[in-house]
């Protein structure tokens, strides 16, 4: 464990920004594993585009987090030199790509949260956060439109595609709960007028999900089913360590080198 987890609890704004960075970073990393292997050329391009948008957003958030921290760390230090327990992304985002149906469903479930969260974040009392949110929202609006559209077309496609999309939804559902759990960082951010409470976004998320799933002829899993949590607190799934070992190899193997 690095110092992050133990010494920075006081710095809630740093934690908050870092979480947003980690969400974008880890999902971008997963998406980039599809490069050149998508189901159609147009899809390869679109998915790479989302990965690119997210890495751009991660860079903005990491840079701001580094500034807030004020210890001279860079965006690359934050991305490449923290171990798993210091990453604060949702468990959903680190899940393996699975089939393309799993990848798209993961994207849709996150895009819906991301869209509503950024929308609220535009009203942040922190000008920098509001500005990054506004810029990101332009991209995420497109991400959400795209993934919603694909979920509908693939849900209401063939028998096989419906089955695959339903299986993806059922598989990933247990990771959606933590997106709406408020913790002390959230409460502090909300009280400071910096960010919305995640729990406040749940009904908008539910509504969009219900609409899309209806059009997609997919069934929403039981809302009361057991939900996993821990990602934002640094308690991940076993997939996270492998993801980072690969992602961080060069920075770890050649410490201090400029690239």
């Amino acid at each position, binding site marked *: 464990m690095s110092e992050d987890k133990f010494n920075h609890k006081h710095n809630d704004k740093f934690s908050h920004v870092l979480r947003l960075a980690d969400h974008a970073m880890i999902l971008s990393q997963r998406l*980039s594993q599809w*490069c050149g292997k998508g*189901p159609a050329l147009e*899809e*390869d391009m679109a998915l790479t*585009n989302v990965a690119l948008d997210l890495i751009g957003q991660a860079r903005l958030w990491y840079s701001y987090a580094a500034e807030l921290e004020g210890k001279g760390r860079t965006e690359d230090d934050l*991305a490449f030199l923290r171990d798993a327990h210091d990453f604060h992304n949702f468990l959903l985002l680190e899940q393996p790509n699975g089939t393309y149906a799993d990848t798209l469903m993961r994207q849709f479930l996150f895009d819906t949260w991301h869209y509503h969260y950024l929308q609220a974040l535009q009203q942040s009392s922190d000008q920098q956060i509001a500005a990054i949110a506004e810029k990101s929202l332009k991209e995420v609006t497109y991400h959400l439109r795209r993934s919603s559209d694909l979920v509908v077309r693939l849900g209401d496609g063939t028998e096989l595609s419906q089955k695959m999309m339903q299986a993806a939804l059922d598989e990933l559902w247990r990771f959606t709960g933590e997106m709406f759990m408020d913790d002390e960082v959230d409460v502090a951010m909300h009280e400071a007028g910096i960010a919305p409470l995640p729990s406040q976004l749940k009904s908008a998320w539910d509504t969009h999900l219900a609409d899309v799933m209806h059009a997609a002829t997919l069934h929403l899993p039981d809302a009361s089913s057991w939900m996993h949590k821990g990602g934002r607190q640094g308690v991940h799934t076993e997939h996270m360590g492998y993801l980072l070992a690969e992602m961080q190899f060069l920075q770890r193997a050649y410490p201090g*080198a*400029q690239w």
Partner: protein
Amino acid sequence: SDAERAFQDRIDAGIRIEAKDWMPDAYRKTLIRQISQHAHSEIVGQLPEGNWVTRAPTLKRKAILLAKIQDEAGHGLYLYSAAETLGVSRDELLADLHSGKAKYSSIFNYPTLSWADMGAIGWLVDGSAIINQIPLCRCSYGPYSRAMIRVCKEESFHARQGYDIMMALCRGTAEQKAMAQDALNRYWWPALMMFGPSDAASVNSAQSAQWRIKLFSNDELRQRMVDQTVPQIEYLGLQLPDPAIKWNEERGHYDFGDINWDEFYQVLKGNGPCNRERLRTRVKAYEDGAWFRDALQAHADKQHDQKKSA
């Protein structure tokens, strides 16, 4: 025939052939082969770079590499579209790729073994591709020439980005510089081979030249690549990857060593280090994606039926 003569006259007069124009069957076939081979190269070419995108050393380099790979998919799209104007579908072209009937550039059958390979590929491979393709911006077939113009513009970015990676490594630690040297050594000869067999061994060149879909000989273009690259190697402070490289005052060109054509033909025959992996990856991607393409089609059909019945 008269039609053939008129066709050749148009070409000689520098008038572009368009999709709806009459053209000899052999011209059409040669173009389909050439354009689709190029398209396939763009698609397969995503894989050696995709191999390092998850391990890029900085966020900025990762973003640049992602953008490059995305561009390559885009080039594939333009080029398949250009080929489609000649009356062949993308699925037919892909079937030929997957069966091994159609080729793609052999350079992508070499492995990417270090981050420096991302530099070497941008610099040497895209660099060579541009030398190959710039003349094609003026080729006789309109859709192809227009696709080439777009492609070349983006590829010159890629080549510069590749050189920039090499620069950073050569200015870096001793380990980084050794990495750059190793990548240059491994990619140098395969990059020279990208121009194809030497003119003596090259088939069909005369006809293609007459049709203006091949404007320079393989050896001419290869010489251009060597002449352009040697000073860059020197500027990077790397050792020349071929001890025979030497400025020839008389020719006004660099001399260089003999290419190992046996290796070239082995790779072409499927025995390169990564032929199996590359093709297997693409076939798997296509097969795994069948449900996706079928579903989008099925959905579109449903929408269409609904509109009709509404």
